């Protein structure tokens, strides 16, 4: 911790941080475009210019090391003039696209132009015009809006590891373009359009769908894999539109891959909203008695799956299953990648597509064998009741050997094959915690409203226990 002076006031800051971050932590603000905490510093945008006492010229704050006794000025007339000048240069060739640009409302250029720009432009010539083109399977680039901050090229080279983008020409003619002949096809096209401070890089999947000021946000965790990147859910009219990254400095989470970001259609469409018996909708009062009688007469019960459920739901399930006083085998690991330590597919995504495998394993949701043992036991007739929580029915299960109950959020093939299907809330409709592959428990909040009356998986098991232990009233007396 060193002491630095900002505009004459002394502050204690961490000297391992960049000056822009250190200044933001103590409450002051320095505008920037090309600086990003996870990427190399380039100093290309010249927006973070500040005065340093003892230095005759104005310097870029992103490239200034934090040292003891540093004294900077961020509010003088010279700094104001520098910021206005940089803004005027950046806006000189920037098109008047705000009504049609998707980034309006979350655009760094809009925000910084409003706070530190001059308000009038002296550019009276024709602006340069390069047509928009497609550079990825999900990525569009609009060259007119690019301010050449170099964030996209840096991200590709440093984080993703490929080098598809490059900066061509120089000066007035600078263009960011594809360095190879093929379109970009990696898993981070959504992240590229996220870090772009203007609307130059856009997603094709969310193009023109909605304006950002209509979204309600909630803090949440991505469900795509066991890394558990922190996200902010964007919901409008109770439909999930997209995920945005939520920075988590302690965990070094700054980005989001495409698989989690765009895999959201299952939350909005094709939801299971009624109990089903062999694929046909039915009332719960008709199917719950058959489950209860099976529990009462069962030798062994198996509960598999559950890696999509929150820790709170899983603890309720284990608690209620103990009350049944039967042998209950629980197994959360249904696919091979859950048995071993998670392997990275690329720098964020792991091979395990479940968000809470480690949480379930920590709570004791494991058996001594593997899923294939449970399948053989079921086919032999030793396990009478198989409850599957939001997974596919395991291969090799023979129909008719026992009762198969599937708890799911969507209408899938396993729901249609199951003897009884139970609708449950998706994780966005409840709050809870997920434990990621590193063992960190991360909270997520309720983002949307569920259909009224929809139980969560914990609620369903509680209802089963309640009905099991309910005593019939015995009427005594003459009647």
């Amino acid at each position, binding site marked *: 911790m060193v002491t630095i002076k900002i505009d004459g006031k002394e502050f204690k800051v961490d000297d391992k941080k960049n000056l822009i971050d250190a200044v933001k932590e103590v409450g002051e603000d320095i505008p920037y475009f090309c600086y990003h905490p996870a990427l190399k510093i380039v100093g290309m945008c010249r927006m973070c210019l500040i005065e340093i006492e003892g230095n005759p010229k104005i310097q870029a704050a992103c490239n200034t090391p934090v040292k003891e006794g540093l004294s900077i000025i961020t509010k003088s007339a010279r700094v104001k003039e520098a910021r206005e000048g940089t803004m005027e240069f950046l806006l000189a060739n920037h098109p008047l*696209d*705000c*009504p*049609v640009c998707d980034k*309006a409302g979350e655009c760094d250029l809009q925000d910084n132009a409003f706070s530190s720009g001059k308000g009038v432009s002296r550019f009276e010539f024709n602006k340069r015009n390069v047509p*928009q083109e497609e550079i990825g399977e999900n990525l569009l680039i609009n060259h007119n809006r690019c301010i050449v901050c170099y964030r996209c090229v840096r991200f590709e080279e440093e984080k993703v590891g490929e080098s598809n983008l490059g900066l061509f020409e120089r000066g007035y003619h600078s263009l960011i373009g594809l360095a190879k002949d093929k379109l970009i096809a990696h898993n981070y096209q959504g992240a590229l359009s996220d870090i772009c401070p203007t609307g130059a890089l856009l997603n094709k999947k969310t*193009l*023109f*769908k909605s*304006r950002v*000021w*209509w979204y309600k946000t909630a803090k949440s965790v991505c469900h795509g894999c066991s890394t558990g990147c922190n996200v902010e859910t964007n919901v409008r009219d109770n439909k999930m539109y997209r995920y945005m990254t939520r920075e988590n400095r302690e965990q070094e989470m700054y980005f989001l891959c495409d698989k989690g970001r765009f895999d959201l259609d299952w939350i909005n469409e094709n939801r299971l909203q009624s109990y089903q018996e062999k694929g046909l909708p039915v009332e719960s009062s008709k199917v719950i008695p058959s489950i209860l009688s099976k529990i009462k007469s069962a030798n062994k019960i198996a509960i598999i799956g559950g890696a999509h459920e929150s820790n709170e739901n899983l603890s309720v399930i284990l608690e209620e299953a103990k009350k049944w006083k039967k042998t209950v085998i629980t197994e959360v690991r249904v696919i091979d990648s859950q048995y071993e330590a998670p392997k990275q597919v690329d720098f964020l995504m792991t091979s395990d597509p479940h968000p809470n495998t480690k949480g379930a394993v920590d709570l004791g949701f494991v058996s001594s064998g593997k899923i294939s043992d449970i399948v053989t036991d079921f086919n032999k007739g030793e396990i009478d009741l198989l409850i599957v929580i939001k997974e596919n029915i395991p291969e090799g299960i023979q129909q008719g050997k026992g009762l198969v109950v599937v708890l799911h959020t969507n209408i899938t093939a396993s729901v249609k094959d199951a003897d009884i299907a139970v609708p449950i809330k998706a994780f966005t409709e409840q709050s809870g915690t997920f434990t990621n592959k590193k063992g960190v428990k991360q909270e997520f909040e309720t983002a949307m409203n569920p259909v009224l009356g929809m139980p969560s998986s914990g609620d369903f098991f509680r209802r089963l226990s309640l009905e099991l232990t309910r005593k019939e009233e015995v009427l005594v007396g003459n009647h």
Partner: protein
Amino acid sequence: MATINVVNVAKRHTFKWYEKFYFYSISKGLGITLKHFIKSAFLGKRVTLEYPEKKRQYSSRFRGMHSLKRDEQGRERCTSCFCCMWICPADAIYIEAAETTPADQHLHPEDKYAKTFEIDLLRCIFCGLCEEACPKGAIYLDGNGEMATDNRQDLILTKERMTDKFGGPIIGQRN
């Protein structure tokens, strides 16, 4: 309370000596009636307007039915920026945006246009905020105010009913 420092701010009309006579006051009232009778019976200065043969002339700022303007090349001005939908205090506007294809570049100047543009006239309060908010001069409330129908479906204005059929001035203007 003791009434001190009371100032009389309203003086009642006190009758003068000639106004106290009965016939004087009556004839004064009758004279007003006679004046209005002569005006409407003989001089033709009636207030009633014979609608629909004669219609009232409204000011240039009168807010009537909505219309979507075109520019001087016949292209639609609306680029579906959602400004009017955002500012509408009654949530009467519903817009869906779509990307312009090369096939209809002659209709749309920019790469975004309004695929659906509906105004629910039963919600609209005709405040004119959408006209003020539009950055392209696309929507104006310059139609007439006669919008009566006999079913609810006709009162949801679609884009076809609202769009001007031909081009307009360089800067979008009211009629």
